[in-house]
């Protein structure tokens, strides 16, 4: 098992609040890793550290290290834009740009200097196919993306993230704003995508973690309590707190 992202003694503070405490974690490539835990436990914070979206919040302080393919993401030589290109992100609330479906998906490639019209068309189509939304939108690529349903918008956002050809896809509760049918479509999609990408998904839905993830990490109050194969975590948790959480005793 080769790991694509590794956290080493990672600590993070928001001002005085110690939000992540000594996280050590290896995230394998081409598989789905689920981050579970009650609200405010640090799982989203951890996710946003991996593509350095936390940089945007003033007063954040980080110690320890995260490596992507063996290189520290906090290194002076690391270009944060290149990192984010490799480590894509899908947000909790679908957030397509207020522009056409085509322009949404083409945004990333265009930003990175992709001009050739034919190639751009191909990239957009491939991304939309990979995100399992091509059949639904192929006849209205020029229409505004805000006219799509919530579930379609979220798959469009996944397509937009895939269009820059990332290696890792971070998903921050991607189905929490969606109905059950859209949710199961996104889950199927995640299972297909793990053939090509490492996926890290934050979820409040434990059934979802069981259904789709290969590994599960349980966070509590900023600490990584337990991390292992999903079937082990859910069938024989080693830590009492993990057991309490997954059996629904708190959270």
């Amino acid at each position, binding site marked *: 098992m080769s790991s694509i992202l590794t956290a080493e003694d990672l600590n993070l503070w928001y001002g005085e609040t110690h939000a992540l405490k000594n996280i050590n974690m290896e995230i394998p490539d081409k598989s789905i890793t689920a981050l579970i835990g009650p609200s405010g436990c640090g799982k989203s914070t951890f996710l946003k550290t991996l593509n350095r*979206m936390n940089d945007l919040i003033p007063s954040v302080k980080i110690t320890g290290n995260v490596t992507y393919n063996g290189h520290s993401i906090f290194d002076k030589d690391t270009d944060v834009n290149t990192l984010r290109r490799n480590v894509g992100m899908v947000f909790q609330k679908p957030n397509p740009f207020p522009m056409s479906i085509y322009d949404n998906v083409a945004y990333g490639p265009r930003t990175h200097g992709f001009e050739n019209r034919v190639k751009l068309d191909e990239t957009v189509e491939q991304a939309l196919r990979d995100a399992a939304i091509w059949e639904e939108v192929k006849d209205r690529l020029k229409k505004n993306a805000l006219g799509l349903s919530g579930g379609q918008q979220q798959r469009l956002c996944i397509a937009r993230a895939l269009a*820059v050809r990332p290696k890792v896809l971070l998903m921050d509760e991607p189905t929490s704003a969606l109905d059950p049918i859209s949710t199961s479509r996104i889950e199927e999609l995640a299972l297909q995508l793990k053939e090509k990408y490492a996926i890290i998904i934050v979820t409040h839905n434990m059934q979802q973690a069981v259904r789709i993830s290969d590994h599960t990490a349980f966070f509590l109050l900023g600490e990584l309590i337990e991390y292992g194969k999903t079937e082990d975590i859910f069938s024989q948790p080693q830590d009492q707190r993990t057991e309490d959480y997954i059996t629904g005793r708190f959270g």
Partner: protein
Amino acid sequence: MKKKQLFENAVQAIFLLLGLVTVGCVLLITVYLIVSGIPAIREIGLFNFLFGKEWASTAEEPKYGILPFILTSVYGTAGAILIGVPVGFFTGVFVSKIAGKRTRAVIESAVNLLAGIPSVVYGLVGMLVLVPGISKIFHVPDGASLLAAIFVLSVMILPGIIKVSVTALDAVPKEYEDASLALGATPDETFFRVSVPAARSGIAAAVVLGVGRAVGEAMAVMMVAGNVANMPSLFESVRFLTTAVASEMAYSSPGSLQRNALFSIALVLFLFIMLINATLNCFLKRNREK
């Protein structure tokens, strides 16, 4: 219960009345301008009035052509927009997206101050600094010119453009910007490719505001433009539509053709502003529907 209902109705009636005051004022002014503006145009002839190149209201054989004023207003406004919009807009982007909290506070209070300065002060500073400066730099005998007016107008429209741009840019949902950054776009790319397009209707509104202010300004331009009824040229003394009305109103005799012609100029100015608002409203609406 009934008492409450009665009170509600009374309050609503008062609000309605207050709303109608505004509408009434606009209607009154419109009707008044049309009624008092039309006689002179009739007498002079619409074509001669609008496209006559000479204004000589006090000559023995008076001429009432307002093309010089129209063109001066158009050029002056265009010039002010050409300078003021880019400067104001980029300042808006800086204030809303790039500046730190403290820098932002400093710039915003400066902008508010600038907006609060009376136009006669702009005129005064322009007269004492800008006019001699232009004369020296460009080696022209008199610096009071269209160019001086353009400079003063561009500074005067800055606060409005900055404020409206900042409001529009602040209102762009953070989710859009996050999405762009997460795709590996730099902050600058994000501002110009996501935030600005998302704020474009607000920014267009900022331009309308600037145009309106520039077309309607009288005092400051009267003081720096020389106020001679020439056809416009950058280094010549010129007269705007507004200043044409303001400068002759005092000594025109009531009922005379001269005074009526001044009303007609005011009517033209009024139609101009209406036209600008209508065009930009159309443009805004089309943007929204897209």
